[in-house]
Structure formats: C-alpha cells, structure tokens
C-alpha cells in the first residue's frame, strides 16, 4: 500500500460530494414513478439553454461558457412513465414528503445542524442535463461530522435535490438525454476538504456509503450512488471530478489528478521562464486544402460530405510545452482537446501535425513549433482557436478551475468550467416550506445506530473486520441485531451465517430473503436455535426452504435432518 508521502508533501487535499438516490416510490417534484427505462422512447423534444442571472446580478462563468457552445438539446420521453414536469411544461408539484423526511433522517446520521425551513433553490446546469436549465435543490442540514480514522470528518452541508437526465449521446452540436432518471430524489452530503491522501478519499467514501445505507432509506444498484471527487494540491486549484460510480476508482483518480496539477504547475514555471508570453499566441487559423488535410489524417471526402473544413493553427515555439505529460499517456495537448471538444463542439480530436513536408513548408513551421490540425464546421473553427488561446493563457496562470469527467484507468478529461455560487437562485415556483416542529423528534426516534457505533459494538463481540464490513455493506445489521437479541447464538456464528453463508447461497441461486422475506429468515433462524439446530444446520434448512417455496420449518427439518 502506498503511503503517499510525496502527495502529502505536495499538500494534497480532497473532499467528496456523494450523490445518493433515495428509495422513495415517486419522484421529488412530480408524482411519476422512478422507473429506469431502456426500451425505445415515445417522443422527443428539442430545447436550448440560455444563462440567466443570479440574485446578486452576475452571470456565472460556466453558464456563459455553455451558452457559447450552442447545443441542441434533445430529450427522450416515455408516455407512460414521465409527465409534463420532466418536459418543463408544468411547474413543479410540492416536494415529495417521503423524500423530505428521508433526507432529514440522513442529515441526522451525519450529526448535522438541520434547517427549519426548506428553500428550494435553482442551480443552473446549461449542459442540458435538466430540461428547465436548473436543478431544484434544497439544503436540509449544515455543519455535520462523523468519526473518521481517529479524528472527525466534517461535512459542510447536505442537500436534497432532483437527479438529472441520463446522457444518451453527445456528438457535435447535438446532445441527447433520457428523462427517466430526471427528478429521482437524491441527497448530497458534502465533506470539508479534509482528506489528505487518495487512500483516505476511498475510505471516507466507503464510510459515507455505509452511513447512508444503514438507514435503508436509499436506493441500491448501479448508478444509484455517484461521487463528485474534489482534489487540490498546494498552489493548485480545486478540481471536481464528476459522477464517479465506483469507490474503487476514487483512489487512482485522486492520485492522477494530484499529479496532473503538479505537472501543470511545473509547466507554468517552464512557460514563465521561457521567452513566451500569453500574447505570443493569436487566434488565427488557415483552412487546409484537401491534400494537406488528408496528410493529417482527416478524410477529405468525409469532411466534404459534412460540409466541414480542416484547418491548421501554428503555435510558435510551443512544441515542447504541448507535449508535456499531464496524466498517464496524456499531454497538455489533451487539455486543449478537451476544451475544444466541449466548447467548439468538434466531432474529432485535433491532432498535432504529423510533419508532412507540404504542411511544414506551406505554413513555415519550424521543428520547435506546435501545429495543431483540426476540423469541423467553419463557424466552429474560430471558436476552436480562440479557446486554444484561452487555455494556453490559463497555463501561464496555473490550473484553471474545472469540472472533469472520469475516464477508465483513472485519468480525466475536461467537462466544463467549475461553477461558482453565482449559479444559485431561489425557485420562484415553490414557496419556502417550513418543517413541522414535531418532525425532528419523531424522525430522530427512527434512526438506526450509526455504523461506527455498530462497528465498535461488533468488535467488542469479537467479530472480524471482514464480517463487520459485510454486515454493514449488505445492510444486515438490523437483522443481525434483532436475532442476537432474541437468541443465545454465538455472535460470530450468527455473523458468519448471515454475512458469509446467506450471501454464498444467494450467489448460488438460493436467495433466502427473496423467498422467505427478512422476517421469514429471522423467524427461521430463531426457530432453529430453539430446536437446538447448529448454525450449519440452519444454513442447510434455509437453503432447502429457499428452493421449496411455501414449505414449513418442520418439513425442512425432516428433509434436511441436520446433525
């Protein structure tokens, strides 16, 4: 295991924003079901997004950037599982009370200061992922903390919000979204930037997940939880890596991002000590003829059929900088590529010229120059060179604040400029919603023990970390606790029966809980205990029962004849 001494010395700092879907029956602001669809959609609508003003009268930087991209946003609709709310053709209905109560309970799990009145706020998202152009979100609690690695891990806040659409495709100026996931309720606990190694990031993510799941109030399965991973190093900038679906990815992503920031800080130093200045680069390009573009790998016939043009931009003396490695197998060129893909909506990645003689001589390119060849509709070419100049200018400043998307292998690519608080404004469609005074005490009583309390308790009972992890992770603690309370079963034997054997049986197709229900499993185990059956015997009895639905315990006992 790495000890991350170097990253600690670089001043690594990380934080997590965990987006966890709630297991409510309906959506947050309409009464649709939370069904995820993979069949063909029934209808499609088309929208565009324009930035609006925040309360303090400023346009948000991300908002303006995304408007520059002029995306055509397509939404796929299902006649029988979405409604006119998801289309933004009907104002929101009042927040789903089940979701509000779940969110408050979850905030209690993180020991937060709870709000007395929910203010639904609009958070602008001009990427189109939400048809209104903003996400409806509200803070339920602030200033939380949980015990973590011998200290406290603090939480800035927890919001309750509607989930966004799922992206189907994003090619050129057209992005397609599916509305099935839109407005599924989420909570988002946000930690303070108090995680000091990539390893701590992963451990914290696991603990947050356990804490959320221990309430049984959250949805499980693929896509039900997504992490935004925030990373900075000393002298660097907070970078947000969006929508990380697996905890296993967090550690490599955090590590690689920290080193990307170091590489960009080193690049800044190199640039500042070179002869170059941001003014050395002008947003100028030359359209290439067919032969030249073919020489750079762009197919002239394809470009012609789409009415696209290939062009070259020459960056004098920039060759050694553009090839500076920033991430494994990626260089500063990829920083430029990400920007122009998103902002200029280029369909193909720009390439560094492959030094065809023709191009070199016609454009007076020296070996020290970087020549970037790119292609797209003519109106996007100008955006491309402007954006390249902007990104190079930023390289002289340091690390631009960005939202980045996670790629397989732990690297990241540009997604958008990191948004600020300027993109928040109150939802004029919904009035503030006071939380009735008795709600807090009522919900407090429903809370399960916290995972760390259980962990301490189970340790005292002599359970191994492996068994404790499984009980927490499989949400079996409540079942375990109540069986233990009503029997004299050995804690370890019961833990092993539930966490190892029941899990093994499920994987082999003998799903106890599915056939018998949680209560049935509990009843069966307690019955076995009273009959003096060993835990191994109980395992065989439950296996038999899960294969013989509607059988009785007596029948199972007779059939299995446990020792």
């Amino acid at each position, binding site marked *: 295991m790495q000890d991350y001494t170097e990253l600690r010395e670089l001043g690594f700092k990380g934080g997590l924003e965990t987006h966890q879907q709630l297991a409510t029956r309906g959506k947050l602001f309409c009464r649709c079901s939370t069904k995820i669809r993979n069949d063909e959609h029934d209808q499609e609508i088309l929208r565009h997004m324009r930035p609006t003003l*925040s309360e303090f009268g400023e346009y948000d930087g991300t908002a303006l950037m995304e408007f520059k991209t002029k995306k055509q946003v397509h939404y796929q609709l299902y006649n029988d599982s979405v409604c006119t709310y998801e289309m933004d053709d009907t104002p929101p209905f009042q927040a789903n009370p089940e979701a509000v109560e779940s969110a408050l309970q979850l905030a209690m799990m993180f020991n937060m200061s709870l*709000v*007395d009145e929910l203010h639904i706020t609009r958070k602008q998202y001009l990427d189109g992922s939400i048809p209104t152009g903003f996400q409806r979100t509200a803070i339920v609690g602030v200033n939380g903390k949980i015990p973590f690695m011998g200290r406290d891990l603090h939480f800035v806040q927890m919001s309750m919000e509607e989930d966004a659409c799922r992206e189907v495709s994003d090619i050129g100026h057209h992005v397609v979204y599916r509305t099935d996931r839109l407005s599924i309720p989420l909570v988002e606990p946000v930690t303070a930037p108090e995680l000091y190694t990539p390893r701590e990031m992963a451990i914290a993510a696991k603990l947050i997940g356990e804490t959320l799941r221990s309430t049984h109030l959250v949805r499980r399965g693929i896509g039900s939880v997504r992490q935004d991973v925030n990373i900075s190093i000393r002298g660097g900038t907070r970078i947000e890596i969006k929508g990380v679906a697996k905890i296993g990815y967090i550690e490599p992503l955090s590590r690689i991002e920290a080193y990307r920031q170091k590489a960009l800080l080193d690049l800044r130093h190199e640039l500042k000590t070179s002869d170059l200045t941001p003014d050395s680069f002008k947003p100028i390009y030359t359209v290439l003829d067919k032969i030249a573009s073919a020489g750079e790998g762009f197919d002239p016939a394809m470009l012609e059929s789409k009415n696209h043009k290939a062009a070259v931009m020459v960056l004098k003396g920039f060759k050694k900088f553009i090839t500076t490695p920033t991430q494994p197998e990626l260089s500063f060129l990829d920083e430029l590529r990400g920007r122009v893909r998103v902002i200029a909506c280029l369909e193909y990645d720009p390439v560094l010229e492959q030094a065809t003689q023709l191009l070199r001589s016609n454009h007076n390119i020296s070996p020290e120059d970087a020549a970037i060849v790119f292609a797209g509709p003519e109106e996007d070419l100008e955006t491309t060179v402007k954006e390249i100049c902007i990104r190079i200018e930023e390289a002289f400043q340091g690390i631009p604040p960005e939202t980045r998307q996670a790629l397989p292998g732990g690297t990241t690519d540009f997604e958008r400029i990191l948004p600020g608080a300027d993109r928040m404004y109150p939802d004029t469609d919904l009035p503030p919603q006071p939380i009735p005074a008795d709600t807090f005490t009522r919900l407090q009583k429903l809370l399960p023990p916290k995972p760390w309390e259980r962990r301490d308790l189970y340790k005292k009972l002599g359970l191994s970390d492996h068994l404790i992890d499984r009980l927490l992770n499989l949400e079996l603690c409540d079942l375990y606790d109540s069986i233990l309370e009503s029997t004299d079963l050995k804690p370890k034997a019961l833990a092993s029966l539930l966490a190892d054997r029941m899990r093994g049986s499920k994987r082999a197709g003998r799903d106890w809980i599915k056939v018998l229900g949680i209560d049935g499993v509990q009843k069966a185990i307690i019955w076995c205990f009273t009959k003096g059956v060993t835990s191994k015997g109980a395992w065989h009895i439950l296996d038999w029962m899960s294969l013989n639905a509607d059988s009785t315990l007596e029948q199972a006992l007779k059939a299995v004849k446990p020792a």
Partner: protein
Amino acid sequence: MSNDVFKGYREATREMMEKFGISVWDDIILTAGPNTFEGVVLPRSETADANHIVIKLATGYNIGILASKVTGVKILGSKNVVFQIPEQEFPFDPSHPNVKLLGTGGTIASRLDYKTGAVIPAFSPGELYGAVPELADICNLETEKLFGIFSEDMGPKEYIILAKAIEKEIEKGTAGIMIGHGTDTLSHTAAALTYMCQDLPIPVVLVGSQRSSDRPSSDAALNLIHAARTAAFFDAAEVVVCMFGPTSDDYGLLHRGPQVRKMHSSYRSTFRTIGDRPLAMVDRDKFTFLKKDYIKRDPTRKPNIRPVFDDRVGMIYYYPSMKADMIDSMVENGYKGIIIAGTGLGHVNKALYEPIRRATEAGVHVFMTVQTLWGFAQMYVYDTGRLLMQRGVVPLGNMLPEAAYIKLGWAMGVSDDPEEVKRLMLSPVGGDITESEPPDGYIILQGGVPEVKDIFKGINR
C-alpha cells in the same frame, strides 16, 4: 421600503433581528442551541410566514431558521448588493428597421424580486440587449413601458392606452410594433387591438413567455427574437400573437388576434388558432404563410383607430340547470351586452328563454357563441336555437366567446345604435368569423392512438 433593513420580516423574527442588531444583507454566524449557520441575511418574502429568518450560505443555497431557536448572532460584515441585468447600449444600425416594443408588464426578460420571491421584468433596450443580444441583428429597438401590471389585471383602460400608443408609433413611421404581455389574457388584448386598430399599415405583434424568463429553458428569448423579426419584416399588417408553435425550441406561430386562445396553463405551445389555420410560421430565417388572404404591409395606408370600449358587457358560460337570475341580475345591474357561451350549436335551457326575452326587450344585446370553441353557432338547426333567436339572441358564427366579449364592448363603444352594433358584430374582422372552417382547422390528436404515436416520434410537438 427600500431602506428597510428588515425587508419583509415581521413579528417574532423582526424582534429577534432587532434584539441582535442584524439587518438584511448582513453576513452573520447564527447560533441556535448546539447548531450554527453562517451566511448572508436575505429579505423575507411577504407571503411567507413570520417565523423564519432566511440565510444565504456561501455555497449559494438559502435556508430558513426558526427565529425562536436563535440563541446568538455574530455579525461578520455586510454584503453590498448590486442587482441588475448587465446593461449595454442597444446598437443602432441605419440599415435595420426601427421597431418599437411597448411594455405592459409581461416577463419577456426578467430579474428576481426578493420581497415577493417573484420575477420582475427587465425592459429597457439596454437590459434587453444584455439578455437577448440577437435582437440587435434584427432591428433598431426602442422601448416604452406603458404600465407594469399582470396579464390578469389588463382591461379596457389598458387596451385604449395601447391603441393610442400604436397610433402614435404609426405616425412616427415605425416599421413594426411589439407588445410584451403576460400570457393569461394575451389573446383578449390581441382581440381588442384587432378591433380598435383596423386598416393597419404595419404589423402589431403581441408576445409573451409561458415559462418564466428567469429560467435557462425559457421560451422568452426565442419568442422575442421571432416577434422582433415579425415586427420588422413580416408582410402582413395585422395584429398577431407570436408564440411557440411546438413545445420544442423550433418555430413560432403567428396567430390572428381574435382567432387565438391560450389552451394550456403551462405548456410552451399553449397558444392555438381555433377553427382555422394560424396565419404563418416564423423562425430565425423565414416566414411561412399558412393562409393566403391577409392584409399586406403598406406604410402609406391610413389606419382606422377607434380606441373605445363600453364595459357594460358580460359573458355567461352556460351550465346545465342555469337559473333565470343569472341573466336577470345582469340586466338589473345595468349590463347592456351579454355574450353567452352556449352548448352544442348555441343552446341554453328553457329556464333562460324568458329572462333572455326580457333582456333583449330592455335593449340589452344578447349574442350566442359556442363553448365547444370549435364549430359554428348554428341556431337554426334545432328548435331550441330557433326559439332563442325568436327571443332576440343573435348567433356569432364561429367567433370565440372571449373575442365576442371584447368585440361587443368595442362595438358598443363605437355606436349607440343597436342595428349598427349588430352590424359591427357580424362584420368579420381579423378572421373572427369565417365563412367556413377548413378540414384542418380542427386538429386535436389523442394520445395512445397508433398513428398519433408515429407522428410524435420526432421533434415535432
């Protein structure tokens, strides 16, 4: 009110604020027992309760804390708030037509109002240029705010002011007029201006937005762009409503004032021409006429502006078992004109025969329209209709009930002579009564039907 440091706060919360010496826009740390909250104090909406203080957190979120829980406050400073749409000078291009935007209080471009938590309009050319810069590629824009009221508060007084403002603009040689308007009664105003402003030399375009302009997905900007193009370049010199055709951001439809109706409380494509085709489609590049007969733009034409309205007019939406007193009370209260939205081909129950006779004999105009909205009042078909006509009810063909209400108020303003009022009512203006209904004038598709499902596969609703 603007200097009120407790904006919107009252009773217990205000007392708490006074006690701790905090004002709106202060940056504070608030303690409530074991809990702490840090942020900027925001004004309180006057429609929200008196028990909570609203704080904007550094993350941009707002939260509400019960004032009675507050145990301590630390003031860190105060946030100086500048709050306006970025305003730039609207560029002038001598080659562009001059367009006038008259404001009534609709939300074409807007900002947020703390006091009510609501959206307030932004309107000057500079503000509009900041919000919708594309306008400068279309026209030279001048704006004039005539009043700032909600659509539902519009009435005859405002129609008259608008008609006079249109007359003034025509005299000035303006190329086209836009009117920004809330959508609720937009079609009523469009009908009123159609009657008050006839023989127009230039187009008059009413425009609004269905989804508020403070949202990125608003239809406001595109409607405004379409309307500006229509005012500047459209060839028909008529009063039209310019709003979304489909709910998608695609093209706009230009509807004739008396033919259009708001048909959904929130959809973008809410405005529909009833019983006919819309006049034309408009997009960023072109106009596509859907009707051939229209009054062409002609800057030399002298308009016939008659800004009058007699508001002793009312409308009755007939329901089964309606009693005589509904008609009698209108007559007793001095109403001089009644529009009935009847059932089917223009019918009401027998209980109303006598009160209707009493009304018409007392000189009250009684006209019949149909609550089916589509189709004609053809009162000669059944005995009920014939008996009603005998009692003085005059059918108005396929005129929409709302247009009929507006038209009667206007006609009674123009003339005291009952025969002249009747003549005006039955003379078609702006397509309010048509000789026939085209087979594609009534298209209401039904979901679930296989062929309809096929139509909606693409981006065309």
